[in-house]
């Protein structure tokens, strides 16, 4: 860190006073006090390790850091940044999730001087992260690995093997691209779904209004090339691709459990852990709890990317960020600390602590050893991060619509509601499209 600072100082001196703040210069204000609110990781050890790292940094840099771990259960974290932005007091930096960087962008301090050097050093950043936090050319938050996750498929090997599709062979725990993986399409999934239902293990794919449901449908839509709103902001819901995606879901839903419409983020976990489902789209939290509570099921799980559609393979991504308030008293120290936490060494330490649940923001960091080591079964989460040979792209529901519209589509669960209207409420495709158009027009106001 010290070496890069002095290089940066030289650069800054050379560039002169008129340079944009593309580099962070360590000022005297980096001492003093700092209050940070991190996300309360569901793996308790993650918080312990985070605290250790931060305390070590604090001791070295002579900054007094107070940490709070704030949960997202009950929208606690969202309430906290709503409260602090209203009260204009509180922590110096807080964890932010998903779209909230945009929602609170006017209160967040720009952090180009932290993020740009990181990109220079580590290469491409997850495009979803850029979409969510780079606003008008400036970064409004620092990407965090703590909490950032993908939601690929997590499936029961015993069922899939006897159905003729062996995830361990198709997505092995090796840096190899198999030809069978090209055959892992939504069509293939549609073939396997009725078999799963017959075996008493229907796929636990929720159509509720929480992120798990919205995310997988978003990835599906994107793989069909279906956009409700295009990048320019035009409402393109009345298109063949959207209809194709909805029709696909209409054919899939009869093979799914009847209560998927009430699924929240934990329902698919429970479906897997109870041994009642052969496949869910979820980060490894479900597998981890299954290993603890229902080991035969847990040792039978394998994680691998989502199926592909006509326009590609997309894996839902749920990023977390660290945002520094404009009214924070010690922005300098916050930038230092959070930038340091984004370095590979710290990211790997944190990731190892949570058994690989956290996904690093930089695609080049998808090669940590932890994912090969976690078991049972060995290699179960090897294919959890997006590996270069997966030909997958991280995605988020609503992309590529302008984020102000996409955030509402995401939070109001427009995608899953559309499908529910067709499959549960029995409306016609025309009615569904008309309803969606009306909703989207409302979002565009």
């Amino acid at each position, binding site marked *: 860190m010290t070496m890069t600072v002095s290089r940066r100082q030289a650069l800054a001196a050379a560039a002169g006073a008129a340079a944009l703040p593309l580099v962070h210069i360590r000022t005297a204000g980096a001492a003093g006090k700092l209050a940070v609110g991190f996300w309360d990781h569901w793996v308790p050890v993650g918080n312990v390790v985070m605290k250790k790292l931060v305390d070590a940094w604090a001791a070295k840099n002579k900054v007094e850091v107070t940490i709070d771990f704030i949960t997202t259960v009950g929208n606690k974290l969202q309430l906290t940044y709503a409260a602090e932005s209203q009260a204009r007091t509180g922590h110096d930096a807080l964890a932010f999730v998903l779209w909230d960087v945009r929602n609170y962008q006017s209160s967040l301090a720009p952090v180009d001087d932290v993020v740009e050097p990181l990109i220079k050093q580590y290469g491409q950043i997850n495009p979803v992260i850029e979409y969510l936090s780079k606003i008008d050319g400036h970064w409004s938050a620092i990407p965090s690995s703590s909490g950032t996750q993908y939601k690929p498929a997590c499936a029961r090997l015993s069922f899939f093997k006897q159905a003729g599709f062996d995830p361990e062979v198709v997505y092995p725990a090796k840096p190899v691209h198999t030809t069978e993986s090209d055959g892992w399409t939504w069509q293939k999934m549609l073939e396997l779904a009725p078999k799963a239902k017959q075996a008493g293990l229907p796929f636990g794919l929720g159509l*509720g209004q929480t992120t798990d449901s919205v995310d997988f449908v978003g990835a599906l839509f994107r793989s069909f090339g279906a956009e409700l709103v295009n990048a320019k902001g035009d409402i393109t819901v009345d298109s063949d691709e959207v209809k194709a995606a909805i029709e696909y879901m209409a054919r899939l839903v009869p093979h799914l459990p009847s209560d998927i419409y009430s699924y929240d983020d934990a329902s698919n976990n429970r479906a897997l852990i109870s041994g009642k489902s052969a496949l869910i789209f979820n980060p490894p939290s479900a597998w981890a709890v299954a290993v603890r509570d229902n080991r035969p099921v847990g040792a039978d799980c394998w994680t691998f990317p989502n199926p592909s559609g006509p326009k590609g393979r997309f894996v839902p991504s749920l990023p977390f960020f660290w945002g520094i308030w404009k009214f924070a008293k010690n922005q300098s120290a916050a930038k230092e600390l959070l930038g340091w936490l984004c370095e590979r060494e710290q990211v790997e330490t944190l990731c190892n602590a949570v058994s690989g649940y956290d996904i690093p923001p930089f695609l080049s960091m998808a090669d940590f050893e932890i994912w090969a080591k976690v078991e049972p079964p060995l290699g179960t989460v090897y294919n959890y991060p997006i590996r270069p040979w997966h030909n997958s792209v991280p995605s988020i529901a609503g992309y590529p619509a302008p984020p102000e519209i996409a955030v509402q589509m995401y939070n109001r*669960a427009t995608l899953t*509601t559309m499908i529910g209207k067709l499959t549960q409420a029995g409306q016609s495709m025309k009615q569904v499209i008309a309803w969606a158009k009306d909703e989207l027009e409302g979002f565009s106001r």
Partner: protein
Amino acid sequence: MRRWLSRRSTVAFLMCLPLIVLIGGLVIYPACYAIWLAMLNKHMTRFVGFSNFAFLLRRDTFRLVVFQSCLFAVSAVMAKALIGFVLAHLLHAIPGGRQRVWRGLLLVPWVVPLALSTLGWWWLFDPSYSAFNWLLARVGIAPVPWLGATGWARFCMILVNTWYGAPFFMIMYLAALKSVPEQLFEAASIDGAGFWAKLRFVTLPMMRNIISITVLFSLIVTFADFTIIRILTNGGPRDTTHIFATYAFEVGIASGDIPLGASVSLFMLPILAFASIFILRGVARRDRDMAAA
């Protein structure tokens, strides 16, 4: 000065002062602030007048929310009032000592913190682990999507609210029943009145005020309920169980449009005010009649 201080009206005013300060500072001021907030745009930079309210009235989802809130409040309050009334009568018929035990048992739903008992209910309705579905499976009935189908989800939220609120009605009505003089019932019996006649001509008139007040109080509180819906269904499936408070939270906090969330909440005020004025006027009229008689 001392005379002013010892004057009756001054002492009275000073005694009421904490109440006035509490209501003025922590209810009226925030309510006005909320009204002002509801008239700002999403990023809270511009004043937009009533545009938030007009926008809401045009949305299908919001109209659904209005309908659902009224459905939820009215059905739940009617169910609670009925059950509370029946229970109060049943309890009243039992001798004192035993009555205490039964009363205690029946009060449990009211006494357990609502957020926590709702979690228990939610667990009973869970798609994968529902104990109710397990019982149904034993008698060969297919599992019910308790919180997954619109009709069932609405039924469940009314059920949980009724379960929670019926003891309150029971206690209020029991207290009111106890205060009806026995002689009235005896006189009615002597006149040959049967059970239903006694109910119509003695019980209900004597209890009308307390019934009105309890119903009004419960209507207001049920209409503004947040905890039950939030934990059970969070508005799902597809917004068919959203009521004002949960929709306001969803739109305001979860989607980051605080002014719109405030506007949704404010819609409750006129509806509740209308109901209150209507019911309170009836109570006041009866009080005047009784005082004049």
